[in-house]
């Protein structure tokens, strides 16, 4: 490691922001991928990977991805829940990678729920 | 202790033994430079040991307090100046425990092995066998659903049965309660039990 300047301290802090928003809970949005047996069978895994890729490509640091069990609507899997802090959570269903891109762009980043894919708003939060 | 830490204890702890524990530590850790700390803590420890082993006498509490105060005033550093605190505070708040150790030779918490006897109250014992299973020295005998008994000459007074019993049927009595009877398998009847309680 080279000698640090005061600016370097800020840069390091910035660089680790994503990691720490995970741990400290300082994130703005949380995407929960429902990974019950049904979800996995329906392709939840690739949906989650797509969401992770979107986040990484956009270099967004205040969005976290988490998983949960079956959301209780196996027929409509893969499903995700997007929670923007201080807004009602939105559940999306029948997802694929393309829809994820759109949801990420419009909802996660833009803050406007993508109504055409949405199942319901204001459902219970996950752990 | 020096750092102002806190230790939480309940009535399963004998306060004389607790004071003794801290004095063991300070007597061992005294650097040996100044007289009150080097010799005084050692004397305190010896006296506490005597009390927990049944050799206490009536003047001891007064002597402990007096010596403790002198050690605190005269010691060179914080070690000696605080080492007697456990003695003083346990005497202050749990004087009765000291008194029962000294006068009745009875450690009510059952910690001081020379000052207690564990007996099973036949009326409370359900014969569940829990105590029998935890007894490492196999001192407890008894048939299922019938009151169990503790063989006093085998019992090492480890307290395991006491902690295990869910029916409070195991009582801690002074060692003298069993004087002359230790060779026999004994139970205690509730009459005796209540009398002493």
């Amino acid at each position, binding site marked *: 490691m*080279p000698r640090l300047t005061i600016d370097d301290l800020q840069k*390091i802090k910035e660089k680790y922001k*994503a990691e*720490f928003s995970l741990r400290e809970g300082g994130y703005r949005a949380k995407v929960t991928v429902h990974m019950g047996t049904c979800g996995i069978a329906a392709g939840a895994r690739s949906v989650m990977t797509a969401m992770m890729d979107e986040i990484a490509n956009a270099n967004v640091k205040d969005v976290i991805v*988490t998983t949960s069990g079956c959301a209780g609507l196996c027929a409509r899997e893969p499903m995700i829940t997007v929670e923007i802090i201080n807004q009602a959570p939105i559940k999306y269903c029948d997802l694929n990678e393309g829809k994820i891109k759109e949801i990420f762009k419009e909802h996660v980043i833009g803050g406007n729920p993508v109504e055409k894919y949405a199942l319901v708003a204001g459902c219970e939060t996950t752990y | *202790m020096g750092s*102002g830490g806190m230790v939480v204890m309940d009535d399963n702890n004998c306060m004389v033994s607790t004071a003794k524990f801290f004095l063991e530590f300070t007597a061992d850790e*005294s650097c040996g430079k100044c007289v009150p700390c080097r010799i005084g803590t050692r004397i305190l420890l010896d006296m506490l040991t005597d009390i927990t082993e049944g050799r206490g006498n009536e003047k001891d509490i007064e002597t402990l307090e007096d010596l403790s105060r002198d050690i605190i005033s005269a010691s060179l550093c914080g070690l000696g100046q605080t080492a007697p605190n456990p003695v003083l505070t346990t005497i202050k708040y749990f004087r009765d425990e000291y008194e029962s150790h000294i006068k009745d030779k009875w450690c009510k918490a059952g910690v001081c092995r020379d000052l207690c006897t564990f007996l099973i109250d036949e009326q409370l014992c359900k014969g569940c066998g829990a105590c029998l299973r935890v007894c490492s020295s196999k001192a407890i005998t008894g048939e299922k659903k019938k009151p169990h008994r503790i063989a006093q000459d085998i019992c090492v007074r480890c307290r395991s049965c006491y902690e295990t019993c869910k029916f409070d049927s195991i009582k801690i009595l002074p060692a003298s309660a069993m004087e002359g009877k230790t060779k026999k398998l004994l139970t205690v009847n509730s009459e005796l039990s209540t009398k002493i309680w």
Partner: protein
Amino acid sequence: MERFRANVMLCAGTGCVASGTMKVKAALQDELKKRGLENEIKIVLTGCNGYCAKGPVMSVYPDDIFYQALTVEEIPKLVEEHFLKGRPCQKLMFKEPEEKSPVPLMKDIPFFKYQVLRVLRNKGLIDPEKIEEYIARDGYQAAAKALTQMTSQEIIQVMKNSGIRGRGGAGFPTGMKWEFCSKVPSDVKYMLCNGDEGDPGAFMDRSVMEADPHAVIEGMIIGAKAIGAHNGYLYVRAEYPLAVKRLQLAIGQCYEAGLLGKNIFDSGFDFDLEIYQGAGAFVCGEETALMRSIEGKRGMPRPRPPFPAHKGLWNKPSVLNNVETLAQVPLIILNGADWYKSRRMHH
């Protein structure tokens, strides 16, 4: 940069390590790899969480699920259920005695719930062996501020105003202690840290040194600047090998990053720091005995005066602060005296 969706903060304090943290970690790594999750789930070893009785413990972020009493056998199931299926494993969660339902979140467990972490602000949140993680949590900001924007007098004034008192037990006002020493003219002074925690059953200093070594070092840098010392010793008992190791690593990282040594933050201020391991005498936690011990002599207290602020280590003006006291210093410098005062415990 890799993105992980979850961080597993596995406790690597002395207690948990003794209970098997390292075996659990290996099992976790194996299992995550087996499930193809190794690039999604990150394992971080942390300092002590203060819950050694039920170790090894770990918490999973972002969910904040707290697991306790982990065993190698439980790991495959845990990985499958939690990390793959998103179903936290109830069996390994904390249960109140006499209660049946588990408490999944760390923040809901009564033991943790009411804790306001200041000294241990980074406990369980950072990897104590990585300086970057400390920096990411505002580490060395206070040192930067103290070294480049504040005079010694200003630092001391903040300390005095904050009302902080020594956390080693005697409770002497730290600001005053620094002020006494700063006023003694001398080319050589020493900034010392007392990590000789010897009380039976006391591990608060150990948990700071293990969980957040940089906080102590940063406190020492600030203190050194305040009193005008350019040399420091961290006196740590040899019975704390993990604390010694992490402090040693941290000091090495600081030297590499220029946070110790010459001309820190180009402020012109030099400070060298090394660890001195105590041989385990309780009395060496006493200020004057500790200094004699560093001098290589028999660790025995000596009468005061002279006070260490005038004649301490090698008869030079010295300040000795407790680990916990020093770990608070960066907070006070960053947040100000009033902030500290408003949150101060009543002594």
